[in-house]
Structures are given as structure tokens and as C-alpha cells.
């Protein structure tokens, strides 16, 4: 599973699920778990200064010992460290957490992984492959991946909102020029399409989101049943807002029967802007 968010990309084992997430670029975190419990926490924080990696790791262990084993000696001197890709990894004894720190100079971000329950085997077989898979997400098209959604958008688009419910994921991106792209992903298509077909489902969802549907076209897209809606939405900026002008939009729904998921890519933008092509947003 590829996790691509703001400034980083990692390859995670398939059974790692994000149970907590943040959408903010300056500071945030992800927490991962599976049936067996917590697997790791990835946090990020903006920092103008290059951090002292060893000091971060040592301070973490000092706080950890204070909180969990106040009776034991608090010296952090016996921390073992290893460099794994861009990450400075620190660990002590088996059963204690393991921490990995990296600084991304260009965006000025500290990335910190915290893995519970250190063992040499886990470090070598699970955590080091994750750390080695790190790629900076610094292209002109930025990758976004998480909660089953994999897409890419021009760098100027920022994540505005994310709503992750069971089998119902919604990510909302917006450009400074008010071009908006929403990505939806639903599970349980046989329930969603039990009493209606995909065009009817698309019309129902669009109606709820306040857009006006001008035309509906059913087609095959990448071998999947797809519905394309030509829409318009009330302008939300400048004179368009004042005169209630409509902005053009396009929504594509498609049903991936292999994954048992329904996807939608909703776009609206001021009149003079070009909408993105889905082939660019969802590379094969």
C-alpha cells in the first residue's frame, strides 16, 4: 500500500490501516494498526532549523523512561543507532519503542516514525523496508495515496478536507485559483446499487452536493462502467459570486468490480480554467 501525503511517499505493508490521520501540512500524524493492534505512528512537523537527530531520539527515550519506568535508570547513553536510508533510527531494548527521524531540507519538515515493540527481526523485516521505501513527494504533480485512494494532482492543489468513514472516503483538494477536485471512494457497491444503477446513484450523490447536472453520459472507462456528468456550480469567488454566475464542472463515476468499489472524481473551476483529465489524475 502506498502512502503519499503532502511531502512524503512510503510503501507500507498491505495490512497496515490508517486509524488516525491529519490533513494539515505544517504538522500532523498518521497512526497505523491492524487486527493485532498498533503498528506505528508517523508524524511530521515544519522546522526551519536542521534538527539534532540524536538529541530527538535521546529525549524521546528519556521521556519514555520517565513515563513508563521511572524506577529504572534514565540515562539515554545506551541507545543504539543505525542509519536507514534518510532515517536516523534509534532503539534500546526488545519490547521498547523504536524511533526513526529524518529531515527533509527542501520543504523543511521533520519526519518521525515511532514503532512499538522493538525486536531486531521486526526492524530488519518490517520497519527498515518501510524507511528505505521513502521518496520525497516533490514533483510538479504531487502524489496522494491513502485509504485506498491513489491519485496525483498538480503541486498547487492543497488538501482542504478529508472525511474517512468505513467504506466511504472523501478527499477534497483545492487550488488557489478555486479549481476544486473531490475524490470519493465507496465500498459495498451491491448495496449502493441494489435499487438503482450507476447513473441514478451519480445523480443522487450530485443532487446532495448542490451541483446542477446538465448532461449525463454512460461510457466504458478503462474497462469499467462509468458515468460522466456535465455539471455547473455557483461561483464562490469575485464577481462570479456577486452575480451568482455558474462555474462549469465535470464528474466521473466509475464502478471497479474487481475492487468492489465505486469511485468519483468531482471537478469544478472558474470559467476560464481547464479541468484536469482523469487519465492524468489517476495514472494506470
Amino acid at each position, binding site marked *: 500500500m502506498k502512502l503519499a501525503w503532502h511531502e512524503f511517499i512510503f510503501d507500507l505493508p498491505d495490512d497496515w*490501516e490508517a486509524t488516525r490521520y491529519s490533513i494539515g501540512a505544517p504538522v500532523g500524524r498518521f497512526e497505523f494498526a491492524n*487486527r493485532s493492534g498498533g503498528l506505528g505512528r508517523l508524524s511530521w512537523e515544519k522546522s526551519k532549523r536542521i534538527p539534532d537527530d540524536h538529541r530527538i531520539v535521546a529525549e524521546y527515550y528519556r521521556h519514555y523512561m520517565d513515563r513508563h519506568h521511572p524506577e529504572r535508570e534514565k540515562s539515554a547513553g545506551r541507545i543504539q543507532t543505525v542509519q536507514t536510508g534518510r532515517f536516523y533510527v534509534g532503539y534500546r531494548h526488545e519490547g521498547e519503542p523504536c524511533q526513526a527521524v529524518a529531515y527533509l531540507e527542501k520543504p523543511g519538515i521533520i519526519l518521525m516514525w515511532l514503532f512499538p515493540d522493538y525486536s531486531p527481526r521486526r526492524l530488519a523485516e518490517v520497519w527498515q523496508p518501510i524507511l528505505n521505501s521513502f521518496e520525497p513527494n516533490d514533483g510538479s504533480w504531487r502524489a496522494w495515496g491513502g485509504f485506498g485512494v491513489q491519485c496525483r494532482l498538480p503541486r498547487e492543489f492543497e488538501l482542504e478536507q478529508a472525511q474517512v468513514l*468505513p467504506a466511504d472516503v472523501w478527499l477534497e483538494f483545492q487550488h488557489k485559483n478555486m479549481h476544486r477536485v473531490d475524490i470519493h471512494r465507496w*465500498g459495498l457497491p*451491491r448495496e449502493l446499487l441494489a435499487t438503482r444503477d450507476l447513473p441514478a446513484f451519480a445523480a443522487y450523490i450530485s443532487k446532495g452536493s448542490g451541483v446542477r447536472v446538465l448532461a449525463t453520459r454512460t461510457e466504458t472507462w478503462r474497462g469499467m462502467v462509468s458515468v460522466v456528468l456535465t455539471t455547473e456550480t455557483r461561483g464562490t469567488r469575485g464577481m462570479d459570486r456577486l452575480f451568482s454566475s455558474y462555474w462549469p464542472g465535470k464528474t466521473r463515476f466509475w464502478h471497479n468490480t474487481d475492487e468492489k468499489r465505486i469511485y468519483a472524481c468531482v471537478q469544478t473551476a472558474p470559467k476560464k480554467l481547464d479541468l484536469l483529465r482523469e487519465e492524468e489524475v489517476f495514472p494506470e
Partner: protein
Amino acid sequence: MKAKPQLDFETQLQAIPVRNESVNMTTDDDKPDALTAEVRLKYRGVMKLLAKLTYARESRRFELTGLAREIFERIDGKLTVERLVLTLAADEKLTFFEARGLINHYLRDLMQRGLIVILGGGAHPES
């Protein structure tokens, strides 16, 4: 007010949903896909008197279709919540936490409507 104690993750998964045996389950000929559950309503104390005076209804009917019916029919008093979660995840290609979220939500709905009770992990319906 005192907060209700939260069940931990493992206890939740090992809990066993059990159907309310007094619920009358029927299938109508004109809606063969739907399972109709009729729950008898019980009023106590002053409510009993008020219900009699106001001719309050004595039962409520719920219609279960599609996946809701399938999951309800899987509840046999032996399967744990975890088994229901894993089955749903495998059948519908959901992740573990997605299936857990949906099953928990659905079981809570069934419980609030009096169709099932949830026994704590390790408990057996006969005990």
C-alpha cells in the same frame, strides 16, 4: 454524570450477538427478499397505564433487506463479532477496520431496536 465504561478492542471482538427469541420473523410473499421482524413493545410502570389509555402500539416492525438481512441471518448465538467482521471483510473486499466499523454500527442499531443482545466475550448464551 458518570461515563459508561468502554469495552476494550479485544472484548468487543469476542462478544457474541444473540437474537431476541421473542421477535417474530416473517417473509411476505410480495416481498420475498425482505425479512420482517416484529418486536413486541413492553411498557412498565406509568408508561404501561399511559400506553393503555392512549392505545399505544404494541409492536414495531422492521424490514431487513440485502446485506442487512444476510448479516442478521448469520447471527446464530455462536458467531463472535470478530467472525462477522472477517466474513464481511472477505465477502465485500473491505479492510478489517472498515468491516468492523460497519458491523459495530449495525449491531448497535439492531440492539437499540430490540432485535439482538450482545453477550460479553467468552460468555455463552445458555449460561
